[in-house]
């Protein structure tokens, strides 16, 4: 059956009070999905995309869902500090900057902000978010800024006051409208979302559209030198649909491509989103023996479909987050918690075995991270020869 409409991430109700906003969001998602299908078709030919828009293409029975999970702490940062866990934790907390302003280098679709106890280095609370910036832009203006005018037919214009109210609720009551909007346009890199807090994702690669793009591009079968690629690292280097070395991108792409190799049609489950799946606090030791899991609250989204989580010790306990130990080490960085957060998205596979697309060649210039990574052959599975085909076209998540 067809999906009647795309719902907001985790079925959030923010849009319910804004006229036509849910329709606008559904139209946005449908536009993105259709665009990605077209992008894939440039490689595989019209009508042959294994990625599909569930709003316009049927999802028949039987279909199956597959959760794809990855760890919240940025693996690229870990890789830069193989000898020092502390250095990696420290770096992950530092902000980077580009022409749009400061942003976090937490590029696994999981970003956080640690609030310190006044006058102390101890952590009072850590806020985690995985909400795409597009959602917040849409809340402010009706649609994400990348949506063309011809798609904006729902007569939705957003609600800036709603954005302000949520910022005041989530970060600080002192947030002002002028802090969030420049010349009337929402600024995703505003100070309350960067230097003073974390409301939604800021890393340029951490977008909802990027998630859809990777899922779509990964449905294209790939071959190098006549051999079908099955290895996740080989695939990301060949297709260039993300950044090698992350935990998320090779995993998402690898899982999706594995389904595509089974001849499946693939899409993302509604409500489409990036989610905090769980926080594993096993073995965390608190000063009074209270289970650390009791200090974790999903404040936006739902359990398993978390959009925002807060780790905070109630004042009544008389101790702070930094008095909790993980493996004997006190929590001094938000990243220590992120290492135990599992992120996820959910894919849908149907019509398994129905597609018989031939694999396509690799993009002409692989991502720079692939330099020096030799071989990339199947470690365990088959290495089957195929005929060469022209290179594909696709966006990248960088």
């Amino acid at each position: 059956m067809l999906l009647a409409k795309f719902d907001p991430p985790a079925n959030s109700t923010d849009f319910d009070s804004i006229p036509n906003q849910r329709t606008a969001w559904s139209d946005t998602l449908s536009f993105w999905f259709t665009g990605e299908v077209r992008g894939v078709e440039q490689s595989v030919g019209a009508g042959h995309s294994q990625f599909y828009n569930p709003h316009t293409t049927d999802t028949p029975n039987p279909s199956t869902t597959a959760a794809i999970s990855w760890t919240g702490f940025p693996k690229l940062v870990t890789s830069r500090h193989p000898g020092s866990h502390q250095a990696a934790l420290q770096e992950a907390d530092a902000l980077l900057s580009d022409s749009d302003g400061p942003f976090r280098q937490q590029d696994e679709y999981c970003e956080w902000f640690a609030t310190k106890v006044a006058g102390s280095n101890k952590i009072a609370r850590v806020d985690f978010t995985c909400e795409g910036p597009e959602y917040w832009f849409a809340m402010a203006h009706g649609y994400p800024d990348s949506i063309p005018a011809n798609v904006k037919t729902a007569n939705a214009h957003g609600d800036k006051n709603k954005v302000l109210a949520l910022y005041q609720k989530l970060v600080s009551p002192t947030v002002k409208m002028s802090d969030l909007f420049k010349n009337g346009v929402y600024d995703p890199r505003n100070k309350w979302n960067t230097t003073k807090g974390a409301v939604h994702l800021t890393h340029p690669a951490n977008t909802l559209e990027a998630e859809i793009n990777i899922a779509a591009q990964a449905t294209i079968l790939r071959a190098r030198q006549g051999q079908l690629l099955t290895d996740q690292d080989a695939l990301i280097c060949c297709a260039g649909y993300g950044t090698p070395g992350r935990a998320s991108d090779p995993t998402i792409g690898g899982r999706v491509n594995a389904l595509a190799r089974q001849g499946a049609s693939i899409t993302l489950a509604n409500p489409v989103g990036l989610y905090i799946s769980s926080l594993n606090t096993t073995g965390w030791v608190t000063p009074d023996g209270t289970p650390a899991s009791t200090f974790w609250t999903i404040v936006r989204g739902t359990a398993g479909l978390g959009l925002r989580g807060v780790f905070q010790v109630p004042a009544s306990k008389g101790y702070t987050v930094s008095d909790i130990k993980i493996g004997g080490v006190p929590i001094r960085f938000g990243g220590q918690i992120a290492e135990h957060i599992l992120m996820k998205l959910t894919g849908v596979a149907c019509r398994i075995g129905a597609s018989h697309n031939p694999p396509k060649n690799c993009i002409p210039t692989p991502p720079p991270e692939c330099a020096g990574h030799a071989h990339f052959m199947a470690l365990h599975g088959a290495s089957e020869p195929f005929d060469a085909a022209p290179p594909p076209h696709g966006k990248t998540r960088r």
Partner: protein
Amino acid sequence: MRLRHPMAKHDAKKTARIVRSLPFQPAAPALARHVGSPLASAAVEEVLDVRNIQGNILAGFNKDHQALLFLKITDAAKAKRWLQFITPSIATMDEVVSFNRLFKAMRARRADEPCGLVATWLNIAFSRDAIETLTSSAEAARFRDEAFQAGLPARSPLLGDPTALHAPGSPKNWKFGRPGAIPDVVLTVASDDVNALQEEVDHLKTTLKKIPGATASGGSGLTLMFDQRGNTLPGALRGHEHFGFKDGISQPAVRGRLSEAPDDFLTARYVDPADSRAKLLSTPGSVLVYPGQFVFGYERQDANGDGALPFDPTVVPAWAKNGSYLVIRRLRQDVKAFRDAMSKQAKRLAKEQGFKGVSAATLAAKLVGRWPSGAPVARSPEADDEALGKNDFANNHFAYQDDTTPVPLKNAPPHRPDDFAQSRADLFGFSCPHAAHVRKVNPRDLATDTGGAHDTLTRRILRRGIPYGDPLPRTAGSTSSANTADRGLLFVCYQTSIENQFEFLTNHWVNATAAPEDGGFDVIIGQNGGDAARQRTADLPAPIDPTQTLTFTTEWVVPTGGGYFFAPSIEALATVLSV
């Protein structure tokens, strides 16, 4: 062959003077090599310092009888003299590889185990505090692994171990390695012959009371805290663990050469070089891993590709080169509880669509991922296949993400051809569930929560465990006292990062419901420290019918001892830790 302590033959009075003045000399080369299949492209692999690396790390003792002797340093100066005395007795990788090759060659020729070929080996490792005692706090602090610095009792909750005071699995109740009573030194003694083992252990205990040849009064500066024995199980269970499953089949195939000869590999290569996979595999399914994952000073596995990363000298002091972290866990196995749980769940499951008639044996095999013979469920989903389980060129050749294809071999020793059914793509876990033990601890070709299949190679550990205690007969009645006898596994593994290898596997994958894939705990060895009831679940999916979720509240694996140690090189032992 009986390898005795060389110092035992020396004049006692001369010995102390000799060990104090003797400069470090590497051991003489052992037996000549038997080289494997030639592979010209592999000449780039590093040459391992085989006369300096302890024998159990990369070569593996593989003995039927072992003793783990846990010691406490009571007098550092005397302990150093004892270490000087014992250093020449430490078995090198060179010696152990040579013996293992001889043993293998004779077994192949005779088609039976060689009679009378016996070696008794000794290895040694130190706790973080022992290193501080024997060197300095600054040197000890240069080991950057947070787990090693904290020690196992502090990290135990992360592994899901019970924390309640009364719980047998709580570190406070362990037989060794309790908080405040962490052994400084562990000796691993291993032999093919139980009497030879006892003789060596007796000898070592004697030296602890008085160092042979020592002129100083008093003992060795070390006292014995605990003597733990392990033995392979008898009869048909040989090579199996107490639940009845063949153990230790899938070990990392470590890259590296034993000499400058281009094809003198630690791990023989039998894949036909004409096949592109020859660069990645030693045998079908055994993926080659760079030695720096297990021994400091060598190239590490690139988590994002087939290549290597250089040794990072900042993670340990310079003298730690050729050493390795050692994890020991004494895991008590409640065999009756395991069998009862499998029977009970199978009985319930057998009534459900998609699982009609399933037996306890099949359910257990599904949750392990292998049948008792070692045959992988991925290749034999319906029933055990002893011939497959026995075939070292087939029993490790399986994957989860894609179908496997035959791997052509060259110069392989005589074996039955791999004419068994290949493994089929099993993304949804219909044959081998996502929660199966072997799929949890080694997801092979799958993408995981931390990356691709190369990342998984960086998580691998070299397991050197052995069972302890007598097996529980199938015929034991429900009230038999044998049911409650202390039996289990002495889990032993080597790696260069306890955090990123052993602890990662346990905390992130074994004890997790949604990683490396969504589908539940590894209920065979997993623990749920995050739940007061310690309940574990595992999903069994079926192609058409609904997934069945199994819930277990009984624990059949309970930690009862352990520790984190560092196994130094022979040179470090002689020139740093004992001086």
